[in-house]
């Protein structure tokens, strides 16, 4: 509390093991204290189109909101997904690869079989920038004449199963994060998912990051902006990916809805990405 405004910040540890998650907390506390001090000075961003580096949670948010929802194949059945027309075509930069699957990595949405009884898969959705596959439940796969991918999930036994994401992520590339930051004359590095919204038909995206740090002449500054809303066209965003870091993080503390209902646990993440996008 600065006297004029109150600032909130959060830090977390992520692990499938309780002990590991708890043991990681003490080292996050000084990070949290520093962060909240910086956020107390955060200003609103000047809206515009910028070069942006995304942290893994924002990369994951893009994977989930921008693309994941667009390739849920029950939307193909309903003619709701523009992605249906782009299978086999370039939808992203050639250095971009994306996966989804309960068996694709070990996180909160990992399981052995889905709610239709189909075994978990690792589905590569984007390969070298080309859309190669969607994700489906049993009913959608039957209607489309495809193999189900183990993505039939229901909120509870009381609800219908739909094609749902599980663990959704971009795969690591070859670039070093420090080189990615150095490559930006003026832009921002964005951190921490707040929320996001999908628009699979029109391939628009809205994602909110908790905060960003201004980059000037290839260096992170002390200028924080918060919150930051990223929006625009999905293909434009994904085709603008020009660098992909060689590290990887998956974060499993999110819930995903189909519209405003049917909540299931999901994870998303990946490496850092360099993109060009509208921020406000």
């Amino acid at each position, binding site marked *: 509390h600065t006297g004029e405004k109150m600032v909130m910040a959060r830090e977390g540890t992520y692990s499938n093991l309780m002990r590991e998650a708890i043991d990681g907390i003490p080292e996050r506390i000084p990070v949290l204290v520093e962060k909240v001090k910086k956020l107390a000075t955060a200003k609103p961003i000047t809206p515009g189109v910028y070069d942006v580096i995304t942290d893994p949670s924002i990369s994951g948010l893009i994977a989930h909101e921008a693309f994941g929802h667009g390739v849920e194949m029950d939307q193909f059945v309903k*003619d*709701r997904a523009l992605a249906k027309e782009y299978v086999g075509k370039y939808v992203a930069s050639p250095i971009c690869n994306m996966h989804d699957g309960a068996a694709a990595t070990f996180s909160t949405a990992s399981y052995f079989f889905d709610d239709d009884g189909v075994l978990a898969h690792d589905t590569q959705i984007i390969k070298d920038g080309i859309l190669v596959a969607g994700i489906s439940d049993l*009913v959608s796969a039957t209607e489309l004449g495809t193999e189900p991918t183990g993505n039939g999930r229901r909120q509870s036994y009381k609800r219908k199963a739909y094609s749902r994401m599980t663990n959704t992520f971009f795969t690591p590339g070859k670039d070093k994060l420090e080189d990615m930051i150095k490559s930006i004359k003026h832009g921002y590095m964005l951190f921490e998912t707040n929320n996001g919204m999908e628009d699979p038909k029109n391939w628009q995206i*809205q994602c909110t990051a908790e905060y960003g740090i201004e980059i000037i002449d290839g260096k992170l500054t002390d200028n924080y902006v918060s919150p930051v809303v990223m929006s625009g066209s999905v293909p434009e965003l994904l085709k603008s990916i020009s660098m992909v870091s060689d590290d990887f993080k998956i974060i499993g503390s999110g819930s995903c809805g189909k519209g405003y209902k049917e909540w299931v646990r999901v994870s998303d993440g990946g490496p850092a990405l360099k993109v060009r996008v509208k921020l406000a």
Partner: protein
Amino acid sequence: MITRIINILKSDKGVSDYRINILKRESYELFFVHKDLETVRSTDTTDIKVTVFVENGDKLGDATFSVYSSYTDEMIAKEIESAKKKAALAGNKPYALPENETGIWESKSNFKGYSAPELAAMVADAAFKADSYEGGSINALEIFIYKDTVTVKNSRNIDKTETQYSAMVEAIPTWNGEKESVELYECYNFTEFDASAVTAEIDGKMREVRDRLVAIKPESKLNCRVVLTASELGHLFGNLASNLNYSSVYNHVNAFSKGDDVQKSPVGDKLTVTMKGRMTGSVSSCAFDASGVTTRDAEVIKDGKAVGYYGPVRFASYLGEEPTGNIRCIKAECGTLTDKELSSAPYFKCVSMSGLQLDIYNDYIGGEVRLAYYFDGEKEIPVTGISISGKLSDALSNMRLSNEETTYESYKGPKYAVFENIEIV
């Protein structure tokens, strides 16, 4: 089953108090893909949640578990034992549980006059009646008809039951152009069936999606007033009011307190908000909350100032206040802005957003706009692909509220509000 649970709880001396929450939900669900009925579901489920309270010195802990219809007495006893251990680890400040009140309520609804399949079919017919445009269609339609019987009982003679009726319609109106196809998302909740109202709601969205196809991205920056409508206003005022919930105040996460200005130096209409427990037509209306407190209304903001708190019994008790129950319906008073005054100058009316983004701590209001109407002084032009962004405090201080009231979901209040100094980007 409930009697068995209560008997086992009463026989366990380690349980200081208990509460049982029961939700029996009967649903009838239709899932359409285009106009084809793909799936019909009917469910009759009962959720039983038992909360065990354990006094531990001067602390009070609680833990909750579910009981399923297949549970034996031994399984229930085992769950209670496990819950007691967990509750003993939770060292919370004690509070007085609600006591000595019983009652049976039934929410007002004409659903009772129909069987669920009959009602679902009538809702579907009413919705598809709006699917009558050349070039437009409803891509997907999901209809959920619910009859909920909500019960709360506790160890202090609380025994309350309410029967609630509600329906949810999720529709995806689509418009197909020569080169592209656009859609909007519609989620419509109601407690009273009126075929013409359902048709009108979906028809309104069909016309909006038709406009989204021809909507343009402005070539130059727009500088004019921004208009938000009922769905966004419910979210905005609800967000402000949540700071005056007892739990926010007790946990010191409220951005303002009783006596503070919610609107700083208002030059527009002053905001008055009452949180209500029961509101005809609202799916969030309830006679009592999950703790068993009978809901009552609370005026929380008056003329731009925070004047009261509301919320659940636990935090009310900690703050020395009377509980209102966990109430979720929002009533905002209308203002002075007429349609004529609105049309006297250009405006940008947001009718479909990806989601209104609010951050009180960072003084931010904004979001992506899927469809808006830009009034240039003569006509409304559909616009898309833009965002709004501004300072929340600024927006609130110059806000003008419509003098016409409307009801949307859990919100009753001004039909629209106009804001200056919100950037259109």
